[in-house]
């Protein structure tokens, strides 16, 4: 078995063998390659950087150059077992629309993101009065691609608003340890550095676009 980054390993664990998977923002294809090789996934990727796309295709992965904001609308509904949006939602222009598309395209959706509600971030802003710099968010305010940062509570609220239901929620700590969490509880929102959600379109309240 290859070793994956801890957050990607959690995502990989959520994916059943032989699933049809769309990885939106697949980067250099690390997760996708793992899923194809180890989970026998029918894996596809969408990636913004053409350089990353070309590298993925040369590795034998099926990846198209595209943009989560612009290109998800063309995919038909319910064609993937799992749609993954890993560490990308905070960089989209319209996270709500993107999430609605993800819930529509996939039978299940996995979203991971850095938690801006983490106590260090809160403290940095409170004490220094400057936009926070963390390991997960290592950009200055003026050049960050992360234009729509959210807390775990913010994301939980958005999922409810879009009619999605939360099947699993996992908190990621700084050291890479992970544990299941209650997304509505105040604790994880303060203590988790990141989160991974497994979502489905929800009982009869499918997101209407």
């Amino acid at each position, binding site marked *: 078995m290859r070793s994956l980054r801890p957050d990607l390993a959690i995502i990989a664990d959520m994916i059943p063998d032989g699933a049809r998977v769309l990885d939106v923002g697949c980067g250099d294809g690390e997760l996708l390659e793992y899923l194809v090789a180890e989970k026998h996934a029918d894996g596809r990727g969408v990636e913004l950087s053409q350089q990353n796309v070309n590298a993925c295709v040369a590795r034998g992965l099926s990846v198209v150059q595209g943009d989560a904001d612009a290109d998800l609308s*063309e995919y038909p509904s319910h064609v993937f077992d799992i749609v993954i949006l890993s560490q990308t939602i905070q960089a989209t222009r319209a996270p709500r629309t993107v999430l609605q598309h993800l819930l529509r395209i996939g039978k299940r959706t996995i979203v991971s993101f850095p938690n801006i509600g983490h106590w260090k971030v809160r403290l940095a802003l409170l004490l220094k009065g400057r936009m926070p710099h963390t390991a997960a968010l290592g950009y200055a305010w003026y050049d960050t691609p992360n234009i729509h940062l959210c807390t775990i509570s913010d994301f939980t609220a958005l999922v409810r608003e879009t009619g999605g239901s939360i099947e699993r929620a996992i908190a990621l700590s700084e050291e890479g340890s992970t544990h299941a969490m209650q997304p509505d509880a105040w604790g994880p929102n303060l203590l988790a550095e990141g989160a991974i959600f497994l979502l489905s379109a929800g009982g009869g309240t499918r997101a209407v676009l």
Partner: protein
Amino acid sequence: MAETGNPRFLRPISAPGADIGRAITFDAPLALDAARTLGPFTVAYMSYGALNAAKSNVVLVCHALSLDQFAASPNPMTGKPGWWDVMIGPGKPIDTDRYFVLCANVIGGCMGSTGPAEVDPSTGNPYGLSFPLVTVRDMVRAQAMLLDALGIQKILCVIGGSMGGMQVLQWAASYPERVVSAVPIATAARHSAQNIAFHEVGRQAIMADPDWCGGAYQLKDTQPAKGLAVARMAAHITYLSEAALQRKFGRNLQNRESVSFAFRPDFQIESYLHHQGMTFVDRFDANSYLYITRAMDYFDLAADYGGVLADAFRGAQTRFCIISFTSDWLFPTVENKKIAHALNAAAANVSFVEIDTDRGHDAFLLDEPEMFSTIRGFLNSVAASRGVE
């Protein structure tokens, strides 16, 4: 159906010892989109590598407008290396140690497959303009008959650039069950108004040449060499990018210190184009040029599917890899991306790669390492999934 060793070339072979390939003549007529039939007809082809016992290692290469079946071996007319020698061969991206590579001359062509320069058996004279209009779909139909004749059911990969890419798309749409994977390169699902316009300039140049003789120049033992050369010169400009022209020629003068104040080819770019035009007429038939450009103009894959391109690929199990080039303004990235979008909408398995180069449309024929690594990686993955060693 009869197999012959020799394609029936129009002109004498000038590269002695070159492999001139094979040809199959079909007695059953080819049903054409123009509601006519063509028969008997011949398909001339070349093959490279060996067909495996399971017949599962077939790579079908589709050629572009002015090219032919000599993709990976010296051209018997010119003696020059095959037009895709950089791509096809032992250890190359399309590895002939692994794959059985087929390339057939298109119907309407002039390198042994039946085209307007061939003799019409019903009159005993060359077809000329009585040759029926053929389409990209007709070309693909003829190739499918060739594969049937060779006992090949499935194609591991159908690949080609420009008009070759149109054939690739048509193959995937017409015979989805036969095509395991498809690599359309620098192409479009329909010919644009601008591209039709360039073709019309070329055709008018041929037809304005008095030696064209209404298409019956063979009977007068002549050919519209000037018209065809002008057509080729105009087309050749569209194959290159402005940046590449500037880099290669700039405003450099040809064998002179200053301009001549006359209409001689003062500039290097002029003499380069003249050379391109002149060498083209030695190897290509003018009427063939008219017919094949027309076939490209008529190509509009979505039109056959109610205007919805995605419907051309609905339910396809084929894996696609689309490749475009940043400086290609003849078949720009946006046209290639439309194909990728349609395939996404059909939930097809698609990759799309844009390669950064300043060499224009012709980049698909050149040494482009990123194109090679893309095709090598894609083919490896497809071959592995089908158990091709």
